[in-house]
């Protein structure tokens, strides 16, 4: 059941992660925890949050830099690579891993298009040690060129883990068909040629650190059981010397798409055909009614509870899977409907049916119960994710990545609570247009 279970989890996650949560109907803040915000003179923003189990905390450092910021030629994948280098130590603490090990810290990091997220989960008694350690590496990271070259090999290994999957190949094709200038053209892991050339980029890595790892571009979120005053004092003390100097990258805007595009790609392993319908969508904005309505439209129109899912997946079984990914990014990005088709000969008919369904949502209003159920799903989806320290930090990360602040988390759910069925139709009309559309199909080579 492993793969199937994973698929189920994805489907569940789409309730919350792709089409994020719903506001309390009352207009109250959805984020329920006691929160303290402060900002240092150098621009570092900090949120302290009381939540989770007694005696523990999660310490998250959110850098508002990801693959999106890789604007120069030949350095795709660098934000992720740099994430790895952040574990290579400093003059004061050359062995970062050894120290986190010594207090049983559960620590790691991950990189996406729009941000790099570092965390340590540990006992609250280690708060000062963690503040010391994190503030030190964000200011004083130091690694040698041989270490840098060695780490590049690990990235190549990471690239190879998923490079041969049909999903990864399809995603690469979609990106390269939709984007010509914007950096969302490449996957977070980077183009293979760039990954292979990484060992030669030592100097660039030093520049990358100086440009992006600056206090104005970082938000620290501490979640758990600890004293706010003590934590604030420690953070003010340890991060005070961090010099500002963030240089925002000139991310090239993608020219507006005005005509539909199509592409197809052949996969050399075995796969069923995969059909994707994609549309260019606006950047994330907590108070944009069209954007928020669009995010829930994905679930309403193509999620497991939708009419077309019932018809094509459950009743007729012409699709093995149908998923909608309508989550928005910091910059305009594509949203996607993906269908895995049982019979290769059926692909054109499936495409026609999915497109007809899109047209229907532009004409008809969804029923009030569906909208209410969706708002409920978003709200409970959000609340149910707040069980662990780290998940609380993750729950507010989206607003922080896109805006630098936590408060839009609450704004988002207020917008959601106020949406009407007309808003949902309007989102379909404005965004699911032919001019914004790109259809990409992956099929098995040789039939």
């Amino acid at each position, binding site marked *: *059941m*492993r*793969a*199937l*279970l994973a*698929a*189920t989890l994805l489907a*569940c996650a789409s*309730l919350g992660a792709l089409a994020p949560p719903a506001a309390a109907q009352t207009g109250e803040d959805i984020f329920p925890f*006691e929160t*303290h*915000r*402060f*900002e240092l003179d150098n621009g570092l923003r900090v949120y302290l949050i009381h939540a*989770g*189990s*007694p*005696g*523990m905390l999660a310490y998250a450092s959110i850098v508002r830099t990801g693959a999106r910021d890789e604007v120069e030629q030949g350095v795709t994948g660098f934000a992720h690579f740099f994430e790895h280098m952040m574990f290579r130590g400093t003059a004061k603490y050359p062995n970062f*891993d050894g120290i986190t*090990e*010594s*207090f*049983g810290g*559960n620590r*790691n990091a991950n990189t996406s298009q729009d941000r790099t997220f570092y965390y340590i989960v540990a006992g609250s008694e280690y708060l000062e040690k963690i503040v010391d350690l994190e503030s030190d590496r964000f200011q004083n990271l130091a690694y040698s*060129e*041989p270490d*840098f*070259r*060695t*780490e590049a*090999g*690990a*990235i*190549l*290994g*990471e690239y*190879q*883990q998923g490079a*041969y*999957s049909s999903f990864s190949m399809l995603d690469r094709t979609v990106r390269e068909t939709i984007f010509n200038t914007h950096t969302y053209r490449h996957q977070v892991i980077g183009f293979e040629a760039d990954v292979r050339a990484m060992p030669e980029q030592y100097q660039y890595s030093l520049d990358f650190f100086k440009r992006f790892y600056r206090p104005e571009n970082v938000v620290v979120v501490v979640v758990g*059981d600890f004293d706010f005053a003590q934590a604030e004092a420690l953070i003010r003390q340890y991060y005070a010397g961090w010099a500002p100097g963030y240089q925002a990258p000139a991310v090239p805007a993608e020219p507006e798409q005005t005509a539909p595009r199509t592409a197809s790609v052949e996969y050399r*392993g*075995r796969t*069923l055909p995969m059909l994707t319908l994609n549309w260019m969508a606006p950047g994330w904005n907590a108070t944009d009614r069209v954007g928020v309505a669009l995010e829930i439209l994905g679930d309403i129109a193509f999620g*497991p*509870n939708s009419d077309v899912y*019932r018809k094509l997946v*459950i009743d007729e*079984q012409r699709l093995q899977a149908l998923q909608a990914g309508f989550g928005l990014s910091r910059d305009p990005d594509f949203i996607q409907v993906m269908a*895995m088709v049982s019979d290769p000969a059926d692909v054109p008919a499936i495409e026609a049916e999915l497109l007809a369904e899109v047209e229907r949502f532009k004409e008809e209003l969804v029923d009030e119960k569906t909208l209410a159920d969706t708002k*409920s*799903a978003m709200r*409970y989806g959000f*609340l*149910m994710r*707040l*069980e*662990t320290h780290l998940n609380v930090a993750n729950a507010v990360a989206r607003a922080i990545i896109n805006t630098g602040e936590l408060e839009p988390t609450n704004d988002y759910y207020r917008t959601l609570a106020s949406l009407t069925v007309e808003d949902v139709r309007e989102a379909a009309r404005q965004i699911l247009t032919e001019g914004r559309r790109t259809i990409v199909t992956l099929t098995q080579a040789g039939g």
Partner: protein
Amino acid sequence: MTEHRRKGGARVALLSAFAIGGLLSGCVDAGQEGTIAMAEEGSPFVAFNIWVKVGSQNDPQGKEGLATLTANLLGDGSTQQDSYQQILEKLYPMATGYGAQVDKEMTVFRGTVHVDNLEAFYGLFKNALLSPAFSEADFERVKSQTLNYLERGRRYNRDEDLGKQLLYWMAYEGTPYQHPEEGYVQSVQSITLDDVRAFYEKFYVRNNIVVGVGGGLPAGFAERVRADIDTRPEGVVEEVPPPAVVKPDRVRVLIVEKETDASAISLGFPTELVRGGPDFYAMKLANAWFGDHRNSFSNLYQVIRERRGMNYGDYSYIEPYPNGSATQDRPVNFSRRSNLFEIWIRPISLTQPGNLHQRTLFATRAAWRELDRLVANGLPQDQLERTRRYLHDFSLNYGSTVSRRLSYAVDDAFYGLGPGAGYLASIRPALAALDKATVDAAIKKHFGYSGMYVVFITSDAEALKQLLLSGEATPITYAGEQPAEIQQEDLEIAAYPIEVAAEDIRIMDISQVFESR
């Protein structure tokens, strides 16, 4: 600039009310026979874990995959009360669901719900377990999705996960543990809806089901769930004997041929280690030092990735860790009466045309050599202390949610570990009691070996076979300069002997993997 907002009172805002010790034990009330109630007062969540004592070991010959298909049909199908679509509709506003996980010996149905929605959720969950519709349409859908995974996804999407499954297949040959839980392509093709019905009637009987519930439980709730489960008839379930632990007497290799630029590598052998059994905690410590999952300070990781940059990571296991590429949360509800010691070397890529096999064997030799060194030398006292301290603190992460704490309690029940003697509760005191002599003796006993099972998934399998048989050294080169001590060590690793006979190397094409028994 600061702002300070204080809020309170929201029902959703409750912190888990139990003390830190709760993270390491839960608050289990063994109470009624066949019921595990883990009440956490004030928790806004209720977690379910219904354990059916059946697994892939119970699959009839030729019907491998039946336990999984049965459980998936229950978890993902209609009931006598609601169509599958109606179930999805009703679950949707609660933002939750339920699902099955099937392992060799156990099947669990899990779900977590916000207390606001407990009654509505439980009604659906109960029906799924007690009054499944067994509709032909649901069966065809679930079976077709399973076959798509077996024929395509399992073979072509992640070689490293496939390699791990193949290691179990080799190591448990001829036992009920041999086949993957999802079955073979041909065995699943042969499964009928009648097979599923019969399997359900035989194994989903009340005396074979343990009820686990946890979190913000209303009064009497656990008893109510138990009473509902007790509406199932009683039945006779014969116990499957545990697989005999047979360590291989020589090295046996499987090479899967596939078009790729990277090799997946898994190796290992059966052990006598089970949770709660002799030496378990000593070996948990030894293994954490050697290859703790996704922890960069462990020895294998340091040698292969950190110092040499050969791949993304290198780990070892004394208990199953399926889906390891996808999760850092320790797996729960994979309790077994037999386990493998398993080394997982993540994909090794070629760095120049033609050097894939050199690098593949170098990484394999490096891991092998480290294992031999550990068995020969034991664990130095300072390393033992270091790892003990790490596990003492890190184990707080294991039970991070109600659902996970409950799942650990279910696993405790599987192993017969009573209240206070459960896994989470035992880790700290058991670690504290260990000394070097005990750990070293356990390492010799459990990691000592006379043979090994090895799986490679790579391109040009025949060439790898010949290189392995030749016994030639397989040196590697680096993108950067390496210190003299690493260069010296590399000479030893590159020539480290792997003695294997030609007849013990089997080659298989990817298209044939898990096709049939």
